[in-house]
């Protein structure tokens, strides 16, 4: 039990710091980091505060408390992936609109150019 706790603390601490570092460097946008912060923070909290972990495990009915960590991590991952699906859908919609506008605009420019060259003659 003791070893599991140490490993959990180390891993979630590393993950937490890594997320901070990514945001600090501007690689990960703040907008998309919120769920990551929340999940790593909760994992770290549960890993450090063993009493809380045991109590929640007892309430939920999990005999081996550390496996609650996996459940929490899994739920957060599901949320993150779902969030990404929403983001991707939104982006593909914007992308489509952009491409359509580009096509319409190219036609407009072609026409204006033709008109301009006709006027010169």
């Amino acid at each position, binding site marked *: 039990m003791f070893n599991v706790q140490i490993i959990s603390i180390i891993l979630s601490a590393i993950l937490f710091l890594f997320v901070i570092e990514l945001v600090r460097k501007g690689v990960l946008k703040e907008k998309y980091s919120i769920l990551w912060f929340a999940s790593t923070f909760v994992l770290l909290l549960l890993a450090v505060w063993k009493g809380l972990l045991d109590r929640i495990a007892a309430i939920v009915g999990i005999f081996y408390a550390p496996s609650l960590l996996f459940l929490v991590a899994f739920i957060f991952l599901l949320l993150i992936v779902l969030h990404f699906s929403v983001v991707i859908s939104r982006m593909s919609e914007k992308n489509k609109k952009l491409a359509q506008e580009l*096509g319409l605009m190219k036609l407009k420019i072609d026409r204006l150019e033709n008109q301009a060259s006709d006027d010169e003659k």
Partner: protein
Amino acid sequence: MKNGESKKVLIIIPAFNEEQNIEYVISCVKKELPYYDILVVNDGSWDRTGHIARELGAIVIDLPYNLGIGATMQTGYRYASRNNYHIAIQVDGDGQHPANQIKKLVQVVGDGMADMAVGSRFIVNGGYKPTMSRLIGMRYFSGLLSLILRQRLTDTTSGFRAVNKGVIDFFSRTYPEDYPEVEALVLLHKSGFKIREVSVDMKDREGGQSSITPFRSLYYMIKVSLAIFVEMLRKINK
């Protein structure tokens, strides 16, 4: 055609690598209906589709990459909406929709008998003979949509359609993506537009095999059924 001629009409032809057929399609339409504007929406073709269409005097919109049939059609409707066309007709780029049947569709919409006219191959049985797996899919959707729309429909997958200004504006805002024909009907019905089928003679595909295999038919049926289900639940901002 007393009504049709005074109105601004646009023929929208979506085309993806149709250099084999596009010349035939455009010249047929031009010969039959010289006073209609023809718009070819070139969905990122890498062959000479756009070039040929321009040579023949069609208006051509080149999309920067392949967007799929739904987004391509919607681009055409956007163009029609912004340039104030009264009626738009979609005609496939592969030559299976005969130009001499277009007037029939325009008349129904132009006379205000419906907001959308759909050219049906099955009201009167003409020469059109689909493959078995295709036929099953078509029957299935006709049954399903007849139930949802509470009106008898025989050819819900037909892409041969004419619409009025109201639908043009609606489609320029909302148009389904992957297999849009069936979904578009549900969408229009939910938004209170009137749909009417018109009997047309359609040929089998000009040259080349259709890409629809039994497996794809099944995939198509499942995907569109799901889309219809979602469509029924969704809020539409008209």
